[in-house]
């Protein structure tokens, strides 16, 4: 066998080995995900029934449920979404369509990149000092929702910018050439065409927010809440109430945390069941986001 043959054989073997290593690593990582789901299911599936969703937490594990937790999560997402979406989309539009390349813009962009990497618990500390005490919002849905909104904001901004950037320049030029003002171009063309991409980013950011625990623990979201915040809508006047914003609350991740931290096995099944609910919700949101992105990509192909 010539030197060249030996060389080629060695190259091929190296590549084969690495290919196997790569597959092994990838499969292992994915296997962990499967193991996680299996473990949760084994521990918690038994606890999952309609009562689990309707019951409040209780000192007796068999009677404890996640009612206050999932309602709290839903209300919190309402506040987070209502705050982060307009702010984030507006900031994204400004940075992508209006801002000139000057020092101020650079500072804003660097700042957003930085905010995206700040640990979530720091947002909790900020909310504690600022919202809970200084602004006197208390340990309420409002404080929690705002903390998570600030957490989610950079993701929404980046998603908006990416979605806008995907629209070719030629579309903008066509609209401008017809005499549209910049805001008209944004409103009539850019926002409708990027809506899918923006929606995807928003849903993903909310799915991250719904799983956050640390910031909410920090502001003092309590873990034994055996009541629901007052309902936002009611049948009698005034039909809309904002009392729920001031109410103490709990959310699914905190409920899980609480149950995991209790000594003894009894609450662990609850924790596993609640984890399944949380993960189910998160996965559902991610799936919706991917579907939206897929649909939009099919409708508009640049």
């Amino acid at each position: 066998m010539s030197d060249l043959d030996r060389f080629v054989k060695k190259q091929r073997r190296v590549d084969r080995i690495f290919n196997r290593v790569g597959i092994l690593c990838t499969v292992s990582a994915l296997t962990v995900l499967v193991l996680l789901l299996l473990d949760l299911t084994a521990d918690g599936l038994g606890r999952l029934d309609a009562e689990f969703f309707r019951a409040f937490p209780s000192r007796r594990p068999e009677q404890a449920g996640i009612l206050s937790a999932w309602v709290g999560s839903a209300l919190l997402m309402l506040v987070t979404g209502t705050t982060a979406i307009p702010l984030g989309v507006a900031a994204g539009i400004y940075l992508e369509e209006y801002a000139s390349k000057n020092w101020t813009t650079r500072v804003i962009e660097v700042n957003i990149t930085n905010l995206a990497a700040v640990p979530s618990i720091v947002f909790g500390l900020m909310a504690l000092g600022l919202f809970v005490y200084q602004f006197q919002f208390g340990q309420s849905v409002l404080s929690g929702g705002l903390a998570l909104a600030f957490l989610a904001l950079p993701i929404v901004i980046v998603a908006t910018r990416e979605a806008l950037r995907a629209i070719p320049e030629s579309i903008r030029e066509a609209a401008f050439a017809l005499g549209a003002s910049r805001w008209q171009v944004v409103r009539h063309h850019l926002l409708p065409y990027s809506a899918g991409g923006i929606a995807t980013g928003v849903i993903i950011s909310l799915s991250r927010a719904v799983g956050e625990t640390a910031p909410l623990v920090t502001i003092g979201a309590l873990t034994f809440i055996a009541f629901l915040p007052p309902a936002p809508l009611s049948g009698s006047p005034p039909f809309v109430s904002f009392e729920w914003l001031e109410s103490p609350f709990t959310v699914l991740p905190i409920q899980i945390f609480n149950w995991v931290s209790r000594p003894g096995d009894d609450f662990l099944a609850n924790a596993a069941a609640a984890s399944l609910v949380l993960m189910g919700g998160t996965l559902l949101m991610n799936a919706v986001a991917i579907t939206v992105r897929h649909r939009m990509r099919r409708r508009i192909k640049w």
Partner: protein
Amino acid sequence: MVIEDVQNQLGPDGGLRAEKDGSRPAANDPMRPRSGEGEQTPSRVKVEVRNLSFWYGSLQAVKNVSMSLKQNTVTALIGPSGCGKTTLLRCFNRMHDLYAGNRYAGEIRLMPDGANIVDPQVSPIEMRARISMVFQKPNPFPKSIYENVAYGPRLRGVRAKSELGDRVEAALRAAALWEEVKDVLRKSAYELSGGQQQRLCIARALAVEPEMLLFDEPTSALDPIATARIEELVAELKDRLTVLVVTHNMHQALRVSDYTAFMYLGELIEFGDTENMFSAPGEKLTQDYLTGRFG
């Protein structure tokens, strides 16, 4: 060889060979220019360019260009790559304003009122309402055919469905596209062929009733048959408005235009009647370009 081409293009009466297939505007077509305009001796000036210069940042791309564009004529802008013809074209509707760091000097006066298009005090939006543009690669909006053409009038405040419908139809007729799309107006514009999309873009531009139409190499992305149809259209459109066409294909300039401007490295080298310039160019540089010595 260009000289022979010229002679082949000229009909027996010395004028440009016209290809008519009956798609000229009908006598009662609302898009037809109203009495007093068009169909008259193209001797009135529509646009007066005086000492126009343009800089991308610190790079001067247009150097002191002056020329007069006559009403209801087609003027072609030709020249080798990088000569500034597209840059010059985009000054007419202030497209450069969309990007930072650009600067105009000099004037482009739009008659009859004499507004200076490149004056910073003059609103680019107003200018774009009077001067429309068709781009190199067809760029319809991802909307229906109807909505594409209706967008311009909607911008101007037209709300009534019937009026919008009329305007859309008139514009599509003027762009020689109506017959092909009249039954499928709600279809997405992206389902049209390349040539149809470009005609849609022309219809979209015509729907705002501009005084002048700018074409930026409108057929470079199209096949020869689509190209021929667009060239026909361009020649017809001069009845209703003034046309400025950038083309990298000098034969196209010969086929389509009344006047030609030859640019080189940002300067206007020669401007004149198309037939004269092609058969007997005044400048050596023009001659060299037309005979293929460079470019």
